[in-house]
């Protein structure tokens, strides 16, 4: 299958200008766990052209209940494995991989070229660090953050709220620290909100000529 055939198939579901805009857009995914792996898959299926993905972690058996990975991939690095899976889904997307611990000292450098970055960490202090660091140091960047997706059910509690350059998806409340755990359905709903917010921003102010 050539890139042109692939583009034509995606085109038939949207339109040429939308496809071009998607192909030229660059989005960062900070953390390749439950949120990050599922957001990335949704974005490349939608035709996103360029991703920067970062995670220092390796895949564990306990991740399989909600993350994109397979049991056969346990022990492998998340970022590198996700890159392979994204290329299986969308052979022509460009993926920049960082197998690294993201800190306040390297975050702006790693994600500096991205229009939008998804915060997909799990520890609250790290979420706060990343959101603040990127918004303080990258004046044109939009940040989408996942806040509250633990437990089961209450699907309609997960919402998207936009505060200027920060968009927050989740129920804003449920915390893994409270012992509810994380499960695929709710994590994927939150990841879907985040991917949807990204696509909306990419296509913002863009009027579909087919309408």
């Amino acid at each position, binding site marked *: 299958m050539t890139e042109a055939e692939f583009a034509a198939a995606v085109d038939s579901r949207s339109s040429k200008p939308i496809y071009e805009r998607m192909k030229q857009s660059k989005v960062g995914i900070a*953390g390749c766990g439950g949120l990050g792996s599922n957001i990335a898959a949704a974005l490349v299926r939608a035709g996103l052209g360029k991703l920067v993905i970062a995670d220092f972690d390796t895949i564990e058996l306990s991740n399989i209940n909600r993350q994109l990975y397979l049991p056969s991939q346990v022990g492998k690095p998340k970022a590198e494995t996700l890159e392979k899976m994204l290329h299986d889904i969308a052979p022509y997307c460009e993926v920049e991989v960082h197998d690294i611990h993201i800190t306040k000292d390297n975050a702006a450098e790693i994600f500096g070229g991205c229009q939008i970055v998804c915060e997909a960490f799990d520890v609250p202090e790290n979420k*706060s660090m990343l959101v*603040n660091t990127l*918004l303080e140091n990258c004046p044109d960047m939009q940040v989408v953050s996942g806040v509250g997706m633990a437990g089961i059910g209450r699907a309609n509690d997960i919402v998207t709220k936009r505060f200027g350059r920060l968009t927050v998806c989740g129920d804003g409340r449920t*915390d893994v620290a409270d012992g509810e755990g994380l499960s695929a359905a709710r994590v994927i709903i939150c990841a879907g909100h985040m991917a949807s917010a990204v696509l909306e921003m990419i296509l913002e102010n863009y009027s579909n000529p087919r309408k």
Partner: protein
Amino acid sequence: MLKINGETAEAVGVTVEAHLKENGYSTDRVAVMVNGEILPKSDYAAYKFADGDEVDIVGFVGGG
């Protein structure tokens, strides 16, 4: 008069740091947006809420 997380608040002149402390937020688990822009953490102690401010405090929780 100002708005904090969509609700009217009588907090003109109160510092962000004092407001966060009083409302049980941990400063290392939040992001504070003032009128749609991020308020740097280094400004929490000095920034006082002004009349008309639209403030959104995001309190991060675990899971991702």
